[in-house]
């Protein structure tokens, strides 16, 4: 049973790696940010699968931090330009 979990985790990992291409090719910073967010979600999926497979339930806490990380980095990224800084 745990073999299946790890196999699916490998599939997710490969899918994440392929998604990295979007970070490399862009074209806009927003596209890259988006890809980074996708990574966060898939990473949570991988951790959710690893937690029972490795027998470490605490991995769910790491997944929680991933979720917060995605929210924080997007918030830091989508800051609005303030009027006086406008070129």
């Amino acid at each position, binding site marked *: 049973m*745990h*073999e299946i979990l*790890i*196999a699916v*985790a*490998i599939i997710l*990992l*490969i899918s*994440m*790696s392929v998604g*990295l291409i979007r*970070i*490399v090719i*862009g074209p806009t*910073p927003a596209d*890259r*940010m988006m*890809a*980074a967010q996708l*990574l*966060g979600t898939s*990473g949570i999926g*991988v*951790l959710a699968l*690893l937690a029972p497979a*490795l027998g*470490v339930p*605490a*991995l769910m*806490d*790491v997944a929680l*931090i*991933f979720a*917060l*990380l995605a929210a*924080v*980095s997007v918030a*830091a*990224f989508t800051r609005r330009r303030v009027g*006086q*800084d406008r*070129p």
Partner: protein
Amino acid sequence: MTQLLLLFDVVLLTTLLALAVAAVTSPEPRRAVMLFIAFGLWLSMVWARLRAPDVALAEAAIGAGLGGALMLAAARRAAKREAGDSTESAGDSGAGGPPA
């Protein structure tokens, strides 16, 4: 089980190395920061795979999260300064160095 885990490790490590190389060789600072954030996530998963959730937590929160957000701000400022140099650095408080 062990073979599958080995395969998992191989995929994880290959991508980790590729990410590190891509981040270091990236010419554009903001792209490098994004790659660094992704690298932090990946490294955090390596720690998770090694059954060290506490280290993984710290890596994700500090390495990727805080570090990423700060570096993003720094890269943004650098890009702004570069753009401002050609025209005029309006509203720049002049905290760092004389104008070129």
